[in-house]
């Protein structure tokens, strides 16, 4: 089966080259493919982070989408903080490496999810004074590790 496939070489490069850099396409090598693309958001209020007078949210599986690929695919998440940056700045997210809050992106063989976790359980004071909204864009690829 390895005798079949498609190769398209770069201008001036030989189709018999063994160097992947000489090709625009060689089906021997996989190429990243986006499979599911979407967006969601999460809003945290002052009460959500106040254990004394509010109803602090310690854990919330607020988003899940099924991909049903049967394997764990690669994914990328971008996020922005709309109120801070006017919604115009999107950065690649790795969750929140913060003492109080984690945003955890999780991918199983069937679904992708985003979870909010409040981690500073010993501090009863609210962590924010005004509501804050995070917006997320996710890209689920077909690539299986």
């Amino acid at each position, binding site marked *: *089966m*390895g005798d079949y*496939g*498609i190769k*398209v070489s770069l201008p001036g490069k030989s189709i018999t080259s063994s160097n*992947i*850099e000489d090709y*625009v*396409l*060689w*089906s*021997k*090598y*996989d*190429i*990243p*493919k*986006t*499979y*599911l*693309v*979407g967006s969601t958001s999460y809003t945290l209020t002052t009460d959500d982070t106040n254990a004394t007078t509010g109803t602090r949210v310690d854990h919330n599986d607020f988003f899940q989408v099924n*991909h*049903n*690929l049967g*394997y*764990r695919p*690669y*994914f*990328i*998440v*971008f996020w922005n*903080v709309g109120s*801070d940056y006017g919604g*115009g*700045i*999107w*950065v*690649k*997210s*790795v*969750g*929140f*490496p913060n*003492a109080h*809050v984690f*945003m*955890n*992106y*999780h*991918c*199983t063989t069937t679904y992708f999810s985003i979870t909010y976790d409040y981690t500073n359980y010993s501090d009863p004071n609210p*962590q*924010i004074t005004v509501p*804050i909204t995070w917006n997320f*864009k996710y890209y689920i690829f*077909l*690539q*299986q*590790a």
Partner: protein
Amino acid sequence: MADVNDYGIKVSRAGFPVLTASDRQLLYSSSFPTLPIAFTGTLNDGSTFAHNLGYFPPYFFIQQQSSGDFFDNSGKVFGADGVRIDTTTLYNNIGVSVIYYIMAYNLRTNYTASNIDTTDATGGATPQDYGFKVSKDGQDVLTAGHTNLNIFSGLSVGGQPVRQVIIHQTGFADNLAAGNTTNISHNLGYVPLFLFFYRINGNTPYKYWFSSYTVNGDLSVTLNLQPTISSTQLTIYNNTGSAIDYAYIILKDNFS
């Protein structure tokens, strides 16, 4: 001799006629470079992988839990705590195993697509009647599942057209001074998906990052490095406090 650009392969995404599809409606076009995955695998914490490509390649990584599921929540991608790459080796010191994908493309390449078609075609009514798929080596194209296809023009479970990422523009520069901003025009007319890599000037290996930020006690965010993109340009603001070297890949995929 005929222009070499007269020949090639072009495949539109499901639902769009290939003759009138815009660049972002294409699944594949041999007019534009892609990001072939040269290496993929698992790299344990504290380990290295020798890719020996001889240049700085772009790469993805994702962390893996003991259950095998993937997650992305540690934020430990900076400096010696991160996953980073140089011209020969991928390093993992993030604290857990990662799955990595290393692409055969030199990050330190200046490239801009020679032709740009941003006029979208109207979608068709029979998106699944036509298509194109190429299986990986050793796989029967008639029976191969998604993961064993190199090119696949079908639809996802959610009905979205699958597409390969196609490169529109790449570039690099060294020694962007602390506090400075630079703008890079792409002229696509829409906000594209992009990848960004940087290192502190003079340091090696490259760190992998799209941006860096600090989450403050009040949950506000301080962006240390701000690569942001609009419908016309990529803007890089260096707030790291040190001069940086950077490289970027702007894809034809629409961010929104």
